[in-house]
Structure formats: structure tokens, C-alpha cells
């Protein structure tokens, strides 16, 4: 096929650079705004936010009640709100119930509390299998869920965003809220892990 014009390069890095420079030339993009936006998601908005919400729920029963009743408001109490967090639901793990969050149709994920999703969460293997074989998926994460424990998979098909409230590990009664929050991983809030003591069992 013949072209009388220059083709955009196929390498995504070059294509993105070309697109950004076109949009800057058209006066539609402020590169400093892109820098600031990227910085926010690389440095400020991540799973440490969600971990603080979980730790607060572990130490404050009244907060936990508010969180389970109206997660959007309770999470905003700690200062976390923003895009992909307009309508939040927190689902609680118990000794006989384990929750797992997925978005089979795209990549919906609660940005204000967990940051941007990891590659595996957005990938075909996780999106395809979390709903049909959650126990097999969890085994790939090293998590064996006993047969007697019910699994609830939450498929994020709307603007509701789901976060798992993991069980507080045993032997943490002496720990402060700050110390507890360090036990809460991103995966524990997606449901592909449990909160554990370092090197310990849940």
C-alpha cells in the first residue's frame, strides 16, 4: 500500500510521543499536567490508603459498622476519594466466607484506595477464570480455601467498586493501628491473599 504521508511509528513509545506532541501542538495538552497526574498515582494513591481503612476497621468497631453500611462515606472520612471510587462497597471475610473481586469485562478497580491495578488483574487469565474457577485461581496465588468455606466473587460490572475487608490475623491484639496497616496487602484487599503476620499464617 502506498502512502504519500508519513506513517506513525509502530512502536507504542514512539506513537504515544507523536500523539502527545500533536495534542500539545493543538493546544489540548499541558505536559506538566500529565506529569502531575502520573506523580499522583505513582507516589500518593496506592494500596497503603486501603490498608489504613482496613486497620481502622480492625481497631474501631463503630468505624467498621459504618464502613460495611456505607463504604463511600466511611472511606472519605479518612480522606480517600476520587475517580473510580464514587460508589464503594466493602465486603467482609469471615472464618466461613471468602470474597474475591474481579472485573471480567474490563479493569474496574477502586483507584482511591488501591491505586492502579496490577497487570495480572487486567489480564485475560484472571478475568476469564476468577468467576468460573475461583478456587483454582486462588491456588495460583498460594491460597487454599477449605471446601466448607463459601466463596463470593464480585464481578465489577457497574461503577460500584468492591474492596475486601480481610480477617484480622490472630496474635495481633497488641499491635497499633499503624502496625496493623502494614499487614494489609493489596492482594488481601482484592481477595487473592489473606492478611498475615510477617512469615506467619493467617
Amino acid at each position, binding site marked *: 500500500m502506498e502512502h504519500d504521508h508519513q506513517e506513525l511509528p509502530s512502536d507504542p513509545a514512539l506513537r504515544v510521543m507523536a500523539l502527545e506532541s500533536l495534542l500539545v501542538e493543538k493546544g489540548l495538552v499541558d505536559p506538566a499536567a500529565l506529569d502531575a497526574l502520573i506523580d499522583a498515582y505513582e507516589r500518593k494513591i496506592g494500596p497503603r490508603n486501603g490498608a489504613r481503612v482496613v486497620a481502622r476497621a480492625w481497631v474501631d468497631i463503630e468505624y467498621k459498622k459504618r464502613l460495611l453500611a456505607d463504604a463511600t462515606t466511611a472511606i472519605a472520612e479518612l480522606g480517600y476519594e476520587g475517580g473510580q471510587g464514587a460508589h464503594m462497597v466493602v465486603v467482609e471475610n469471615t472464618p466461613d466466607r471468602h470474597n474475591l473481586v474481579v472485573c471480567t469485562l474490563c479493569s474496574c478497580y477502586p483507584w482511591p484506595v488501591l491505586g492502579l491495578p496490577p497487570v495480572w488483574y487486567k489480564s485475560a487469565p484472571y478475568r476469564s477464570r476468577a468467576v468460573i474457577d475461583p478456587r483454582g485461581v486462588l491456588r495460583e496465588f498460594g491460597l487454599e480455601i477449605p471446601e466448607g468455606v463459601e466463596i463470593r466473587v464480585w464481578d465489577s460490572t*457497574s461503577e460500584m467498586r468492591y474492596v475486601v475487608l480481610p480477617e484480622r490475623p490472630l496474635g495481633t491484639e497488641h499491635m497499633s493501628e499503624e502496625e496493623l496497616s502494614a499487614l494489609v496487602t493489596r492482594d488481601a484487599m482484592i481477595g487473592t491473599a489473606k492478611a498475615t503476620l510477617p512469615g506467619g499464617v493467617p
Partner: protein
Amino acid sequence: MNGVHDMGGMHGMGPIALEANEPVFHERWEARVYALNRAMGILGKWNIDAGRHSRERIPPADYLRMSYYEKWLAGLVMLLEETGVVSRAELDSGRAAPGSAKGRPPLTADKVAAVVAARGAFDRPVNEPPRFTIGQSVRARKINPTGHTRLPRYARGAVGVVDRIHGAHIFPDSNAHFHGERPQHLYSVRFAARELWGAEAAARDWVYIDLWESYLDPA
């Protein structure tokens, strides 16, 4: 649309690739694509549902081959061109058309903190009460719209129970095509794993799916 993006229940996609200490972005261009999508979204020429639908319209073989942010780039280019923000000639040449009007950036650095903290809202007031009640059995309709929908194929025809009522939310099937928000009541519907997948599924497992009222019939 019955696209390859509607992945729930598919087999053969391989193992889940885990990465320890994964960075937020693996390459700088991924970060730029993410930020360009957010910044251009603020132009108001499209909405989140149209954004999702743009990526769903990537040809299936490409969709499966592309990385996540390659899909975000392809979707963004599609939307910019379809809404007339840039022309095909400009995309091909990489230069603004001679004499074209210069715009103003919808997102400037001073507005980023506010934009990041703005949560927006997708619920809308409606006059009609919800058609279904908590605890009611409902069947997901067997529909195969060629446009955008959030009713996954794996749930179509299946019977579940209304678990929560989330209020009325913007209807993506309409909004994605710029046919208006047309809000409808949104329900969390609980399906037994065996109802969705058959007798081999675990007896105690459930899948909860958020479904709009017009996706459902009484069962």
C-alpha cells in the same frame, strides 16, 4: 457486543503471571497513555462508557495480543478521531492541520489535585421505584446487543437473587453510544456458581454481578 473482552468463564488464557514489587507503570509511555486518557476525558467529548466501548471495538485478535496500555492508546486514538478532536490526516502526519484553531488544555497542572480527588457520581434520581426487591428471584435476560452492554454473556439466562439495590445509575448501554444517561435501578444479583457453571462448580460458591433493571425479568 459479544466481544472477546467479555471474558468471564473462558478457558485457555493460561496461568496468571504474578510480578513481585510491580511498578505502577512499567514504561514511561504507559504512564503518558494513562495520563493522556484522563486529560482528554476532561474535554467532555465522550464518557467513561464510550471509553470502555472504544477498547471493546478493538478487533479481537488485536485485543488479545495488545498490552493493557496499548489498548488504552488504541481506544484514545479512536475516540479522538470519532469525536473530531483530531483528524485522520493529523494522526497520520503527527502535525496539526495548517490554520487549525488552537485549543486550551482541559487539564492544567494546577487542576490535577482537584481532578484526582473528584469522585464524580454515577447515580441519578429517578421517579419510578425499583421493580425488584431484595431477596426476589430474577432471571438475567437472554440478550445479544451489538453495542455496549454490561450484562456479561456468562450470566445471560441464569436465575439469581437480588442481594442489594444500589439506587438508579447511568445506563451504560445508552450512555456509551451518546444516547443519554437514561438511568435505571441497579441491583447486585447473587448467582449460585452451579446455576452459572453446572454441577461441577462448588456447592457453596456465588458470583455477585451488578445488573441494571432492564437486564432482568422476574423468575
